[in-house]
């Protein structure tokens, strides 16, 4: 790596119709952004299970980005609302584990927003860099073993 600074790994869950297409558009438009994101495609943001996010953090992700269509624009009518509703609950759960809120972010990116997608990734990467590595992995692993 060029700097000896911390390069976080971020897992991104992107819905197929809007956000994944938007990320592809960033590519076809050759818009450059940070290399830290690893994308996993789901059909709809409503499929993104809180356990996926916990699993990613547990496996060593320093951040998790969830992207879906803008409210009102979901390919599956209202799947993104379902994702949105789950999100505050998840945040509370993370708080309970002492995981910084900014490590898990929810963003709406439409199929035409390639540039916005790149900006979201850059912004989040900077935020996670500032936070440093996710230390709670150990705490979380301990707690899960307890149950």
């Amino acid at each position, binding site marked *: 790596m060029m700097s000896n600074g911390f390069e976080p790994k971020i897992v991104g869950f992107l819905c197929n119709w809007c956000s994944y297409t938007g990320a592809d558009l960033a590519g076809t438009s050759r818009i450059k*952004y940070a290399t830290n994101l*690893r994308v996993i495609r789901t059909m709809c943001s409503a499929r993104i299970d809180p356990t996926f996010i916990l699993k*990613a953090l547990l496996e060593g992700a320093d951040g998790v980005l969830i992207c879906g269509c803008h409210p009102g624009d979901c390919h599956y009518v209202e799947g993104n609302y379902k994702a949105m509703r789950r999100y505050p609950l998840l945040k509370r759960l993370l708080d309970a584990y002492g995981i910084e809120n900014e490590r898990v972010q929810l963003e709406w990116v439409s199929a035409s927003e390639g540039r916005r997608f790149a900006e979201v990734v850059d912004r989040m990467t900077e935020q996670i860099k500032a936070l440093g590595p996710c230390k709670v992995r150990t705490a979380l692993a301990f707690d899960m073993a307890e149950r």
Partner: protein
Amino acid sequence: MDTPKIGVYVCNCGTNIKKVVDCDEVAQQASEQPGVVCARSYKYMCSNPGQEMIIKDIQEQGLDRVVVSACSPRMHESTFRGALAKAGLNPYFLEMANIREQCSWVHTDPRAATDKATDLTRGAVRRVVFHEALEKRFVDMCPATLVIGGGITGLTAALELAESGNQVYLVEQSGRLGGNLANVDLTAPYLDSARDLIRERILRATRNPNITVFLDAKVESLDGYVGNFKAKVASAGGTVPVEIGSVVVATGYKPFDASRVKAFGHGTNPNVITSFEFEAMLRKGRILTDKGRPPRYVTVIHCVGSRSEEFHPYCSRVCCMTALKYGQEIKSALPDAFVYDLYIDMHAFGKGCEDFYKQASEIRTIFMMFQKNTAPQILPGGPKDDCEMFLRVDDKLSGEEVDIPTDLVVLMVGMEARDDSAEVARLVNISRDKDGWFIESHPKLDPVATTTDGVYIAGCCQSPKDINESVAQARAATARIMAKIAKGRIEVDAVFAEVNQDDCSGCRVCNDLCPYGAIDFNSETRRSNVISAMCKACGACVTACPSAAIKGRHFTDEQIFAQIEGVL
């Protein structure tokens, strides 16, 4: 499960991937993953030799899982699934890693990009282990089509389908067919009569027994899936249910409201009119100012609402040539009149258009160029002047500020997405871009299909277009539909959700969750059940089921968990 035998294929895409990602290293790293029996880096995976290579490995090495690290799966997943099928392997044993659109094209640091491509490939390798063979699903194709919009695009689509013997329901929201084109006099650049173009089509459509026309009508609902949609069409005659296999959205555009550009005073100054108001004068054959006399000076202003920071950033495409057409129509009606043409840039891109531009200069249209994001200023004429007003223009060509005498100003209003475009998009389940135009499946390779199978878009509802482009799109959409009709039965994706009846507690949490009403509750067994043909695999029910009784085929928890482990 037996140990899988995975083949990994890392595509260079010529230099598209290779110039940033070290494809050999990605393949090398992949070959060390458990289960990987061969890993290759190759120039063009989607080419015939590329696909043959996969087929040969499947047959000779007994591969039962394939990972292709290449472009977006949205681009070539079906290509590679085809290759697997050809080799006798179930096509769902494929997983793609997107190392082009989401890696080599967006990164410049070869080390970091190679690491990312390696991670994404590892994610795919881990995931593909858990893939399952899914059987093909076929559904019947209803040969009828719903066409929404009765302008030139919708009429063309309807005629094309109906004249090939298929039933069409043509739904027009206004009281007459013809759309915006019915309000136009002549067309550019060949000066054909719009009335002739459209009238003949309206006659043919209304006389064709295969076309049912609904006027003053609206599609109230659309349910179902490709080949098997059900719609409700509401009109004065009540609400009629129709069954169709495909939908063509041809809802067109709305002319820009010129009064929004305050500087021009449209709506308050009666001698400032829009291009559509001017078309009406031309059709009546009476070009007159509000005082009822023929104008001596006519000024045409381009890009009203288009190519502007304040209104719409895009070019509306047809206004430049229409403005030139006005020069010709004015000169033939009023040979002594002066025509000023104020433009930002002259876009004469189409066939015959450059010649048309030349003709306009020959008839002595006076061209002046003004600065983008500025507007020529209107000054009232005095009692001694021989004109109604003056237009003050900062002419970029001469570098001088000039006041041009004017009796009538024609504003070339651009096109904008219709007010109901959001509603229509939701009705047929397609997306809109930032300007409100409907989004096509692929801008170059799939211009009339959408992300909803069986729903096509054509004409100006997708973006501004001229008549020939709109007609071409209408015909393209109908060709797609007729290809499906010809097959009779169509293959649909084998990906859907299913309920494990033994695990279902009958809590019914999933029942209201499904956006497509695909979940049925059996009151006898007190278990829920997914009607697979109606399921669109969003996975909402999978995530929500408290008993983990629902499996999202091809998007199972274990597949996604494995991928998460792989990318980290």
